[in-house]
């Protein structure tokens, strides 16, 4: 055999594989970002939001602005030696009847002055900060301890239809008893800051908050501004006796760390109605399309965990249509009706889901609401 240069397939393989090295843990960076959500420090003022349930949108010597990604939040706010006379706290994306309070470490309530806002999902207050003080900030829902039935909505996949999302919000506003919207990813087309900003501007027309996870389209920009605007991709919270868990499946996989978190959240929700939301579904009912996880073994691993964890239902996005099915005995929904290029010939179009939850019976009913 002559010893000349040839295109050896091994070289081709290794070249491609080397380019992709590290892609086994493709979501690792996002797990790190998740863990940083809700923490901030500027001009000596520090904020730490418990469980990362809110993103710090602005923090300086005069203002704290948070974007809530859960119905209730608790945070610790610490002021430095020297403070300004007035300090404003603005919490966005709250329940319309949410109550904002601050207390000192000894339990004494801090006096707050409300700042007028026309947006139902905002709480805006002013206070006179004391130097070297540490305050507990709480946003609470008056009905959070109730175990009575309630309603929430589900939506995903707006992408490049942000300009028309107001129509969906207008239709959602007619669901008078809905408490909030769960959004299963693909808020934007490319995940850029201006798109995220615009979505939040449009969201002012919605009278209830939206709690989100990210989709693969939020990964279209390397700096991932999603975390600065909306908060965590994977998290879990309770509301009125039901548990809501979002998982970051934007890369068609879950990071190993997220599986560990999920095990904890499944255990916490074992006796609750438990709804799990993620963008890319572990399985696509149309298997030849494979709009789902990269590995079928991982699909089964996740589905088995969710089923053994006793969740009530899983809600996915990514596929721009509506599917209702069961996997391993779990009711599952794919609802990508936010306005992105629709799956043709399915007769669905833009839509969202309405869930009526009975926390005591750990049961629910769902229906599709068409927007167009």
């Amino acid at each position, binding site marked *: 055999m002559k010893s000349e240069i040839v*295109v050896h397939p091994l070289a081709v393989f290794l070249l491609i594989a080397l380019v992709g090295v590290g892609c*086994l843990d493709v979501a690792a960076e996002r797990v790190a970002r998740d863990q940083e959500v809700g923490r901030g420090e500027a001009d000596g003022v520090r904020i730490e939001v418990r469980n990362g349930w809110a993103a710090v949108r602005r923090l300086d010597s005069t203002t704290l602005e948070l974007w809530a990604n859960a119905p209730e939040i608790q945070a610790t706010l610490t002021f430095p030696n020297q403070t300004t006379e007035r300090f404003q706290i603005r919490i966005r994306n709250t329940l319309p009847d949410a109550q904002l309070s601050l207390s000192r470490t000894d339990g004494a309530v801090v006096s707050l002055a409300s700042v007028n806002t026309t947006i139902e999902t905002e709480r805006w207050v002013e206070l006179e900060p004391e130097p070297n003080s540490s305050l507990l900030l709480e946003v609470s829902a008056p009905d959070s301890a109730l175990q009575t039935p309630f309603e929430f909505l589900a939506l995903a996949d707006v992408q490049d239809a942000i300009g028309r999302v107001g129509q969906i919000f207008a239709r959602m506003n007619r669901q008078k008893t809905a408490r909030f919207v769960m959004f299963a990813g693909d808020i934007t087309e490319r995940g850029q800051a201006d798109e995220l900003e615009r979505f939040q501007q449009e969201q002012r027309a919605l009278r209830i908050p939206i709690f989100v996870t990210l989709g693969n389209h939020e*990964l279209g920009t390397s700096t991932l501004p999603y975390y600065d605007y909306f908060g965590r991709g994977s998290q879990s919270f309770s509301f009125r006796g039901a548990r809501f868990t979002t998982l970051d499946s934007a890369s068609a996989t879950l990071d190993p760390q997220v599986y560990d978190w999920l095990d904890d959240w499944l255990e916490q929700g074992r006796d609750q109605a438990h709804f799990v939301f993620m963008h890319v579904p572990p399985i696509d009912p149309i298997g*030849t399309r494979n709009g789902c996880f*990269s*590995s079928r073994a991982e699909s089964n691993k996740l589905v088995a965990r969710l089923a053994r964890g006793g969740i009530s239902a899983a809600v996915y996005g990514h596929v721009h249509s509506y599917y209702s099915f069961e996997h391993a005995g779990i009711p599952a929904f794919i609802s990508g009706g936010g306005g992105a*290029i629709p799956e043709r010939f399915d007769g669905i179009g833009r839509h969202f889901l309405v869930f009526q939850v009975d926390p005591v019976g750990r049961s629910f009913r769902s229906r599709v609401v068409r927007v167009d």
Partner: protein
Amino acid sequence: MVAPALGLALCSTAGIGDADLAPPPALPRPPCEPSAVRKGLSIGAALLPGVVVHGAGHWVAGQPQTARRLLLLEGSSIAAAFVSLAGLVTTGASRYVVAPLALGALGGAGLFTTTWLSDLYGVAAPAGGTGRPLDSTRRLRIQTGLRAVRDPLFETRWLIAHGFELDAGSIRISPELQVSPDARHRRLAFLFDRRLSGERTDPGRHPRWQVDARFGVRDFKEGNEGFGTTTAELALRGRIDLELLGPTLAGAFGSAELGYAREWHRFRDLPGYSWDALLGRIGFGVYLGHRGDLRGQSTVAYDHRRDTVAGGLHLPGLPAGYAGYLEHRTEFNFHRNWGVAIDLAYGSAFVGGLYLLFNFGRGTS
């Protein structure tokens, strides 16, 4: 399970199993070997602008006919991929049309890669190519080896792989087992191939192109997580020696597969479910060695499956979830009956395997 099975299939599609193989008829070679300078320029042209204009290397090498054919195939591949991707976008990957459109996109991308690699190979390979198919008979081949697995989501780190390939001329049977040392991860495959068509040559001669039908049944059990999958599949598989496109491509071959699979997933103490899978694979390979026992072949392939140990590629960003995995396999005979093989697979896991091959009924010419 699947990667070695496909490796076996690659061997079969490469014609190793054909009876009474004889050397392929010689095709005309270029009148003279290009100078070292021209060869270097050809390789450079195959890289740039060749990565865009396939056949550029052959133009510089003075092989315009082969260059035109590569360019024509590249154009076809781009057209197929463009039409398919446009169809996928405009229909929103509708359930009613997604399978043919996905195959079109996959085939287009695969053909595009193959024509570029062919251009590069044709100008870089020595005269006569890197080798030619094994010109021997072989009725039974046994493969046994070990696979190392790096998967962040599963505990399995090693798999013992064992299988054989029984070649009865137009029919080939290939059972295979992969099992972890603790037996918690187990993959079984039974593959049956039937030759449908191929270049008519003398009996036993290595056909320069062929089309096979494959029926396969696979079973996978993951004991640590408590689930398993049984798969039934039907596929068409083809292989072509690329020297049919031009003499400089002697020693290289392309392969492709398309098919459908039905999967039945089961869970410990939970209800199961079933769903479909689209099978698609495209590969490029070279034969190694021209005569004697020191012979083999090497391939690189993209496989659209997600149900192997490797899973599908974790593509960052927007295309997440839509790709299968990459696989490389090289096998080399170092003795009349003995050989070794390695395979590497890269998807959501890295998998590397080392195998010992034993061929019954093999003889060299």
